[in-house]
């Protein structure tokens, strides 16, 4: 396996984010091709490619588009989920900075396929530079006639709106995102009905991740078969993987699905002090952690599931042995507590309780009984909360306890900052390469 530069192919060009830079490499040629194919053929093509959603759950994209009822007389909407807020995930933001037109072209093709005349890109609020760049790209696309009324004489109209959220993790959950987009407080909606039937303004809506949509022009250009040359039957294609943590060259690597973590580590220059990670998470903080023994597993949806974790956003975080597991888990739970929307009891109350108890461990004040209690509390949230944020909050601790029980027991008497020099984990540590 090697790097598979598709989305990232021209990121090193100074004008990769401009329409000129994008068109130089065949950008926007797919619009006409899509119009030629027609909506149903486009949906079929994406189905055939086996593309799975890049937002974390890996739902088959073509199938999702197929759920949109046709000829129902209602407006349809495409909503692009650009809320990327998962701790560790950093792939959509660079993509939108360096190659925003792939997203815009993907929006045109997808909207055309699902018969939407309005599309929205919902960008998290904390990245105004990305917001500016997307708006510039959209402006350019309008000026070039790829957006607006009667695009390229096809009779197809599309208005594309870039919308900034206010910075809430829950607004990445697709139904909370829709509420937020409608001007309400972002909290997940009761399903069914699912967005494909009643989404934005109670009309059929497709919600897809940035990377998912950015894949579309390339599939249209090269055909469905083309995508399946990479990856596995269940996980075809390539994937932007953002590697962060104690590696020499953290960053976004575009690789075939099925690449192993060990290979990915190589691309990233290996661990900063050499050796192997203490623990790593394949897809952001919301998936169970793995250890060095899992480095040779292929990074696919199915292999990660078999290992008891999830590929998620495929944005691995890698930690060396300077890091206190207790402290890392505590930080994540602080995050979930802070981001819990408050709608349902298990997550609203449970995240606070777990986080508060973890702080006792971090301070070396936990008890062994509380370890059992924490496991139970996680079980009381997992599968009982209203949305997946609660499940995510219940995920980090149990795996961390399984893999590092002794460290938790130590945290019943020794504060984390005594067991692990807090400076050693940072770039300030002696010998750190970055």
């Amino acid at each position: 396996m090697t790097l598979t530069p598709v989305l990232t192919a021209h990121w090193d060009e100074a004008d990769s984010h401009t329409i000129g830079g994008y068109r130089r490499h065949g950008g926007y040629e797919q619009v006409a091709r899509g119009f030629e194919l027609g909506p149903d053929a486009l949906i079929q093509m994406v189905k055939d490619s086996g593309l799975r959603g890049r937002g974390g759950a890996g739902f088959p994209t073509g199938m999702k588009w197929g759920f949109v009822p046709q000829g129902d007389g209602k407006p349809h909407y495409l909503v692009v989920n650009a809320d990327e807020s998962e701790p560790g995930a950093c792939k959509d933001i660079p993509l939108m900075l360096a190659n925003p037109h792939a997203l815009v072209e993907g929006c045109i093709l997808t909207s055309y396929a699902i018969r939407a005349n309005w599309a929205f890109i919902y960008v998290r609020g904390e990245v105004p530079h990305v917001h500016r760049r997307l708006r510039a790209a959209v402006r350019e696309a309008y000026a070039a006639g790829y957006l607006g009324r009667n695009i390229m004489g096809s009779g197809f109209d599309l208005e594309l709106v870039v919308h900034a959220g206010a910075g809430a993790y829950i607004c990445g959950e697709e139904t909370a995102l829709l509420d937020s987009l409608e001007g309400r407080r972002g909290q997940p909606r009761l399903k069914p009905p699912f967005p494909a039937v009643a989404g934005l303004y109670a009309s059929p809506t497709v919600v897809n991740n940035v990377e998912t949509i950015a894949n579309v022009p390339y599939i249209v250009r090269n055909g469905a078969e083309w995508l399946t040359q990479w990856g596995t039957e269940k996980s075809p294609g390539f994937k932007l993987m953002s590697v962060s943590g104690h590696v020499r060259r953290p960053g976004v690597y575009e690789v075939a699905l099925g690449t192993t973590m060990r290979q990915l580590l190589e691309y990233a220059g290996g661990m900063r002090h050499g050796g192997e990670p203490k623990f790593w998470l394949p897809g952001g903080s919301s998936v169970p952690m793995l250890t060095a023994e899992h480095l040779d597993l292929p990074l696919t949806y199915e292999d990660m599931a078999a290992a008891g974790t999830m590929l998620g956003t495929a944005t691995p975080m890698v930690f060396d042995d300077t890091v206190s597991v207790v402290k890392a888990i505590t930080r994540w739970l602080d995050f979930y507590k802070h981001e819990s929307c408050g709608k349902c009891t298990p997550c609203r109350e449970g995240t606070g309780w777990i986080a508060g108890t973890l702080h006792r461990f971090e301070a070396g004040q936990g008890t062994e009984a509380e370890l059992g209690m924490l496991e139970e509390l996680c079980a009381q949230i997992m599968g009982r909360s209203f949305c997946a944020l609660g499940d995510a909050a219940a995920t980090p601790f149990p795996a961390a306890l399984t893999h590092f029980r002794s460290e938790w027991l130590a945290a019943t008497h020794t504060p984390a900052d005594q067991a692990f020099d807090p400076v050693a984990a940072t770039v300030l540590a002696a010998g750190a390469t970055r």
Partner: protein
Amino acid sequence: MTSPTPAPGTVTTPPPPGPPPEATERAPAVPADHVAASIDGVDVVVPKGTLIIRAAEQLGIEIPRFCDHPLLDPVAACRACLVEIEGQPKPQPACAVPVGDGMKVRTAQTSPMARTAQRGVLEFLLINHPLDCPVCDKGGECPLQNQAMSHGPGESRFILPKRTFPKPVALSTQVLLDRERCVSCARCTRFADEIAGDPFISLQQRGGRQIVGISDDTPFNSYFSGNTVQICPVGALTSAAYRFRSRPFDLVSVPTTCEHCASGCALRTDVRRSTVMRRLAWDDPDVNAEWNCDKGRFAFPYLQRDRLDAPLVRGAADGAGAHVAVSWPEATRTAAAALAEAGPRTVVLTGGRLTLEDAYAYAKFARVALGTDSIDFRHRATSAEEADLLRTVVAGCGLGVTYADLDVAPTVLLVGFEPEEESPIVFLRLRAAVRRGGTQVVTVAPFASPGAAKLHARVLGAAPGQEPGVLAALAQPGPDGGADRPDLSAAGSVILLGERAAQVPGLISQAVALAGSTGARLAWVPRRAGERGALEAGALPGLLPWGRPLGDPDARAQVATAWGVDPAALPTEPGLDLAGFLAAVAQDEADAAAHAAAPDAGDGAEAQLPARRVAAVVLAGVEAADAPDPEAFLAALGAVPFVLSLETRTTEVTALADVVLPVGVVTEKSGTFLDWEGRARPFGQVLRESTAITDARALALVARAMGRPLGSIEVADLRAELAGLGRWQGPRPAAAPVAAPVPPAPGPGQAVLATWRHLLDQGRLQAGEEALAGTARPAVARTSPATAAALGLVDGGPVTVAGAHGAVTLPLVVTAMVDDVVWVPGNSAGSRVGVDLRAGAGDVVRLTPAVRSDEPGGAP
């Protein structure tokens, strides 16, 4: 982000269950649109769409719940109701998942998964809860307490500091929030949004800090706000009226009927040591569902205020002078002597607040003891046209249009009627019907009131006086073929006539005609709780009980038999109504004045003063301010030689009375109200130990002293007598249609007055409830932009509305409405139309921009 669950489409949708293995054995066929399933192994067949939690209730299987409420849309937020559904990996919220065919549901009774899930949620709910039950108003009747006991863990493992908030927050003057007790169930916010249509409260913030709140400048001033206090499953919401007043286990609860309007709400009145502590909405699916309005809930301090405790008579022997307290026998003797002399020249005005039984006693007293038919329950703007309507199509017609009919009516036309202000449960039922999507509300009004807006009502704009024309146009096929016309001919359509229809000549006739031509059903919705009962009791000239025409010999004979009197003794000629009373007194006064001015004939013989037409008046709790012209009404009372007032407290009217008999309030007696549907709403005596005398008993005492006993006046006997009489089955006189006059045409500087009362206003029965008054709508005047511009009025600026005899000055709210009309509330602080303006709907008034009186040199 990664969601550990699969993406949409697979998350919570139950897999389509295959045919259950024992399907072939299931004996009874499942009716169409039903599904068969089992809960804890017990088979259940329910209509499709039935939620698991409802199906479980049918089987008597208890599932804990907080956010669930049968009348609110599901949110599935609290997660207390999680159950196991066979084939599903995760427990599912029973309050949000409909029963599927063949579904096998296991609750905590039989499923460890459900048991641990429910227990876990209850544990979570309790960790940050203050557990201050001993000082919490909900303690002892708290779903959290109860379900923590039944389904929760016995002990807490939580050792961290609890969440705290400064307490309490006032969501309005009436509804207070102790935030630390809130379990974020969103019942209150959903009620406000879905049921009342007043989304003035919402959940704010997020995570553990999520809390109910208002926006800074918009308090929770909803007429229905008290319901949120009742359905809050914890003690987070309390009412200023009841907060810290009592503990539930110290209360004696009595099912009652609300006395405040003709909606007929079933209430529960809670009493501690002979004092009413609070009222709650009680569950009556046929009428108020589980809701009521804030007036019915909170307006009860009047029961104990300014009460009269002894009969009063005039001190001096000549009947002049100050009131002195006397014994009942002395007072009744005095009254009896005067009334015996006045006899049929007595007029009985009963007001709209009596129970059916008391009103019946007045009707009988008038005919039997006084020999008069001069009795009128309508103490408000009325008309002969209205009386005709009541005699011909309302009285004795039994249950007519019902609430259930409103639920399914395709079109409901409101005429002279603002349901939210005048009959709040009609409003809620209509709102629910509109929300379900099958009902279109149309209103004939000068503008879209807040209530009409919440009903998404189509407004057929009409200035007072123009309504008959609007209805006439509805009856005629228009040039457009009527396509854009509200369709009253659709089966089940209803016309709701408010009591204010009587203020517009010709309107009632036009509405009756419209009902006739379209087939729509007609219902009359009075404001007061006692009006329909009084009508049925025969407290209207020309009308004996249950719609019996006075002029019909058979009717008279039936009534005479029931009353044990000689039919010949009953009056045969229709007596005076309120307007007739006022006119007769005016004539008496004119005669007297003429007599006084007449020159002596010179022969020493004085010219004979003609006998007074009205020699006495008997008043049952009428409020002067309710009269069309209160000042004229009080003047008339002053002119009548003898005034007997049966009252609960001192009023302007008792001040003029020669004899005052103190009678019991609604909690001191049992009785029946008939709601606007004609449905009997009987209630028992709340204060059992009360020795208060009912109106019926007081009348019986007077009648006995007159030597004309009324027979038993026990409530049970009166009821039996009424029931024995039954509805009139004979012929009814036809109503004489009244032609509508030309609508008033205001000149320059003028407008036509439109007015109705706010639900919460200066009404006497709301006295003493300051927290309730704080949620009332402010008094404002409304005109259209064009009218405001023509008269130089500015939005928000003060405007003086002046009639011939009075004026009110109010801030103007420029409103999209009919031109040349000014609307003001009828009885609000600063806008008592009868008392201050001394004008009525349809009168032409003058409008001038007012200078605020607090400005130097400003006019009042």
